[in-house]
């Protein structure tokens, strides 16, 4: 962003025009929006398309008019990252049949509408399982004997607890005695809060803390480094932020999804009416390859994780999805 050059979408040159509606939190959230935008840009470049991200300070209330404006202007494909548009997007899409619409993170109906759903709980399950195995691996100097791990969310909401519950389920499946501390920063951009929350968890015996809190998470990683314990990163590969202190990162390939959708659109094979499920199977989510922590974790554990992954892909393990199923009994976050 930043070069204020005009990129009018009406004069759809090359592969057509696109627009990316940025969700709450805005660009700069260091996770969801940023990653989608990265993929969006890549997709535009790959397919010779034009387009721009659209941010609004009031994306919830202004959603409909922005979508309609895009429809009016004949934008080729509109990708909407804001979950709260689940009601309005199908309505608008029906009024603008010539435009293709993509809703991310929620499902919407319509012939010219594609939905993209991530199965973050599946990747989080693996993170939880890994943490549960590692927290008793006392040969690792960063690990204590207590069976305690932690989870820090940016806000207490279904979308975040989807991660939390998968994480807890994974941990408990490995060892029901592992205690999972949960806390929320109520802010996605407050590293100091993240650092304090993590520090408090480390003091209570946790040695691995999974942070799903955007920019707040950088504070968690910092705390891991300072206390010489572990953090688990999220969305992008954050393993390098504090080499050796980020056990792994739970990747969520929003960027890949964007690229895929744009490519399909450019190829004329827009998946209208379909829902793309991006889970472990589709490589939409997953753990990193432990570049800095391989040795500390040990091959046995790594193999066990691979096995669990396969079981999920094969449907032998069902991971709880808070968004669809509500809260399970084993989650006691509130």
């Amino acid at each position, binding site marked *: *962003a*930043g*070069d204020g050059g005009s990129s009018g979408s009406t004069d759809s040159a090359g592969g057509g025009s696109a627009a990316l509606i940025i969700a709450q939190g805005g*660009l*700069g*959230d*260091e996770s969801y*929006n*940023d990653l989608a*935008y990265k993929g969006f840009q890549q997709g535009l470049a790959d397919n010779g398309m034009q387009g721009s991200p659209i941010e609004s300070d009031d994306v919830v209330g202004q959603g409909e008019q922005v979508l309609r404006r895009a429809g009016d202007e004949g934008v080729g494909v509109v990708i909407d990252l804001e979950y709260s548009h689940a009601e309005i997007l199908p309505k608008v899409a029906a009024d603008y049949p010539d435009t293709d619409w993509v809703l991310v993170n929620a499902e919407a109906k319509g012939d010219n509408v594609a939905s993209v759903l991530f199965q973050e709980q599946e990747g989080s399950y693996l993170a939880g399982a890994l943490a549960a195995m590692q927290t008793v691996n006392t040969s690792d100097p960063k690990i204590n004997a207590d069976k305690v791990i*932690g989870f820090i*969310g940016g806000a*207490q909401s279904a979308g975040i607890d989807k991660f939390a519950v998968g994480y807890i389920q994974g941990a408990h499946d490995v060892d029901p005695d592992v205690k999972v*501390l*949960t*806390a*929320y920063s*109520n*802010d*996605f*951009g*407050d*590293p*100091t*809060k*993240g*650092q*304090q*929350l993590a*520090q*408090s*968890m480390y*003091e*209570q015996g946790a040695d691995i803390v999974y942070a799903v809190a*955007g*920019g707040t998470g*950088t*504070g968690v990683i*910092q705390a891991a480094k300072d206390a010489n314990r572990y953090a688990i990163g999220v969305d992008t590969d954050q393993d390098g*932020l504090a080499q050796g202190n980020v056990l792994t990162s739970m990747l969520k390939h929003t960027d890949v999804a964007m690229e895929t959708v744009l490519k399909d659109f450019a190829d004329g094979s827009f998946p209208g009416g379909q829902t793309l499920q991006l889970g472990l199977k589709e490589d939409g989510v997953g753990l990193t390859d432990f570049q800095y922590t391989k040795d500390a974790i040990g091959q046995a554990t790594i193999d066990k994780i691979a096995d669990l992954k396969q079981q999920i892909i094969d449907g032998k393990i069902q991971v709880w999805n808070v968004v669809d199923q509500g809260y399970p009994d084993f989650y*006691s*976050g*509130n």
Partner: protein
Amino acid sequence: MIDAILASALTLSVPLVFAALGGAIHRQAGVVNIGLEAHMITGAFIGALLSGWTGSWIVGTIAGVVAGAITGGIMSLLITRLHGNEIIVGLGFNIVTFGVIGYLLRSVFGVSGTLQPEGLERLPSLVIPGVADVPVLGAIVSGKDPLFWLAILAVPVLVWLFAHTRWGLRLRATGASEPASASLGLRTAGIRDGAGIIAGALAALGGVALSLGTVGLFNENMTAGRGYVALAAFYFGRSRPLPTALACLLFGFFDALQIRIQTSGGFSADIVSTLPYVAVVVVLAITGIRQYARSSRKIA
């Protein structure tokens, strides 16, 4: 547990104390500074940037403070010379500052929300030999960074400056009665600008404590409303240094407490996180009611 909470409370209070003392100084000069949030984020940003470029926390800190002084000065000029309503100017200044920093991050630094400059040096932590192992006290005073000690020092120094220097006297006079001070030949606008510059600089120091203190990076939202909490603190402390700092500490304590309660589990994070705010209302109500009961004159 208690020493962990206290240590955490102190850490969380440091940025607040600087910003609130800045606000208190400006308030003593007669201006309510709504722009503390803007000065804090400026300090955090420039501090991180310069510490990264030079690899020196000292340079970073000084640069952050200077930057805050500049934004504080600009904001003050808008209020004193162009007679802008302080509330609106402050609100507008916050919006503009966050806009400019966000814009710079994207256009100049090519990053979105977070900037982690290579080679950034964090504030050193000063371990006091001997004390470090003393229970409670060790947790409270050992391993703190220089800004922590500066914050502690700032309170008595400010009390002294208010009472014993020309600057302090004239500042208080201007705030207490601008027309009277002006008629005595004080350059009240200049005095207010000076206070605005110091308020900006101190708030920026609070920002530096955020970006170079606990974490060592910059995030465009890292002030997270602390400027407004600081505002509440100096209102609460009636702009007197010690009560203002204590208000920050109270807030920091309940913030640290809510973190511990949360991580211990069993309560709604949403509810628990309101604890510091509820505490402020309760304390304010109790002191207010007691004060009211003591006065016999019932006129505003």
